[in-house]
């Protein structure tokens, strides 16, 4: 039986230097019809760092993440403010396509298109009007290198992306996202469908990528959060309970619910 924890007792850090932030949410609420799935999420994400969102299944972490680039449009109602470059991108007047070009997303299940490896990366670039062949080629190589996939696929760019292994497919999805040169990269449990060796490769890729991008990653794997992230937010039943530097979260959790979760009492 799950213990009842008070949702009043939270420990969420704030950042004074606003210029160092990539994104920030204020009072973010998400409703699936009558179901209030996310309550009052106030989180700020520092630039060029990896922030991990952890918590048990159904804690709202994926729901929260999907709100950040408006992927919940048409699925759920999202209220509150999402600040990005001092613009509230949760306003209905904002161009969602433009947002998604700056805030890329990688999903839980590797989901390359049923096209060739090259086409998978070129697709979005073309959709955005990039036609120059040489430049497209250059972007393909650059993004595949960025996702640490280039050496494995450089001789088979015209092969179907579905012929790759799960780990390679996921890195292709990362490559596809960074080909758009976004600011922020959202990853929704990117390694949950992968074996340990592929997971290590994806994690190494992320650690490399944080030099250029701000990364927010949802994971239900606490060890993974400990390995890759600098900041860590703990979600519980649709509430943000604790948000601290990762080291603090795992060595000295501030409130009982986090202590129990880190200790493995539930989740």
């Amino acid at each position, binding site marked *: 039986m799950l213990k009842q924890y008070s949702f009043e007792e939270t420990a969420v850090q704030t950042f004074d230097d606003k210029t160092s932030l990539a994104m920030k949410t204020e009072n973010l609420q998400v409703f699936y019809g009558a179901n209030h799935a996310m309550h009052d999420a106030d989180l700020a994400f520092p630039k060029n760092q990896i922030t991990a969102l952890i918590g048990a299944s159904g804690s709202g972490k994926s729901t929260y993440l999907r709100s950040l680039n408006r992927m919940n449009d048409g699925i759920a109602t999202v209220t509150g403010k999402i600040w990005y470059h001092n613009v509230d991108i949760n306003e209905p007047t904002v161009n969602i396509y433009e947002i998604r070009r700056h805030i890329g997303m990688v999903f839980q299940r590797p989901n*390359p298109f049923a096209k060739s490896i090259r086409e998978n990366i070129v697709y979005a670039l073309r959709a955005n009007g990039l036609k120059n062949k040489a430049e497209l080629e250059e972007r393909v190589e650059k993004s595949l290198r960025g996702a640490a996939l280039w050496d494995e696929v450089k001789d088979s760019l015209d092969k179907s992306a579905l012929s790759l292994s799960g780990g390679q497919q996921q890195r292709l999805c990362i490559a596809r996202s960074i080909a758009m040169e976004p600011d922020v990269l959202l990853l929704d449990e990117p390694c949950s469908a992968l074996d340990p060796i592929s997971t290590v490769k994806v994690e190494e890729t992320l650690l490399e990528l944080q030099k250029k991008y701000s990364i927010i990653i949802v994971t239900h794997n606490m060890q993974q959060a400990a390995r890759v992230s600098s900041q860590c937010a703990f979600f519980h039943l649709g509430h943000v309970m604790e948000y601290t530097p990762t080291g603090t979260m795992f060595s000295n959790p501030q409130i009982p619910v986090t202590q129990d979760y880190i200790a493995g009492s539930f989740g």
Partner: protein
Amino acid sequence: MEQTNFQLKKQKSQSNDWSARLHHATRATREDWMGKGISYLCIGVIILVVASMLWFITSKGVATFTQNHVSLTKFLFGTNWAPDQGHIGALPMIVGSFAVTFAAAIVATPFAVGTAIFMTEISPNKGRKLLQPVIELLVGIPSVVYGFIGLAVVVPFMRHVVGGSGFGIISATFVLFVMVLPTITSMTVDSLRAVPRHFKEASLALGATRWQTVSRVILRSATPGILTAVIFGMARAFGEALAVQMVIGNAAIMPKNLISPASTLTSQLTTGIGDTIDGTLPNNALWSLALILLLMSLFFNALVRVIAKRGQLKHER
């Protein structure tokens, strides 16, 4: 409960010969045999019916060439159809059939794909509640009704607009367009719904617009399914007899244009089959037309299979 006890008792009273005990048939095994027997019987009957139809049409259809010694090239490429006088050039009907089939498919496909996209991507709710029943209704309307509407509305309209008698390929195309539209639409809807949701999500997350997502990702990966739908529509158009017969004019001559009376393989069959005597050349010639129809439907079926396989293979390598 009682039965179990009874069986247990029975087993107890049996000998200690385990081999006999474990090999003998019980009610369960006999039920298995029954079930198997019934299924095999049904399959056997179906196979028998299909095989005898194939055999019947083929043997009757080739009689024109084996008994009446008409040459195959004359039959396939001759343009003079007068079986009473011994002329059986079937080309006008073959051309007529292909013309109405392709024309109907070409006209219907854009409408069908457009409707299907609306029903799956643009307004799934309205699509399911409003359009789905309409399309199912259209499938259920008997072809004689389509033919009658064609005769009462389309033919006079064509007479008025393009001149001539109004009977002809263009009227047949129009009627067939309405008839194949629901077939192609509902199958296209199925293939669009089968496109994995994560393709759509991936595309949207990359900043692609809805239109780009539909046209470059969803339609692309549904292409084999859409082709299959079009071919099924064509098979229906190719095989449709009654409605076509009522509006095409039934003149067994080479169609010169789209508004002159023509005929198709099926319309010629239904027109002529009552007037001929079994075993004579005119009768055999009609069977040969039926044979062409049969071969074409086998061809359409084979095509569907090839496309399905291609679609599967392409991404497994």
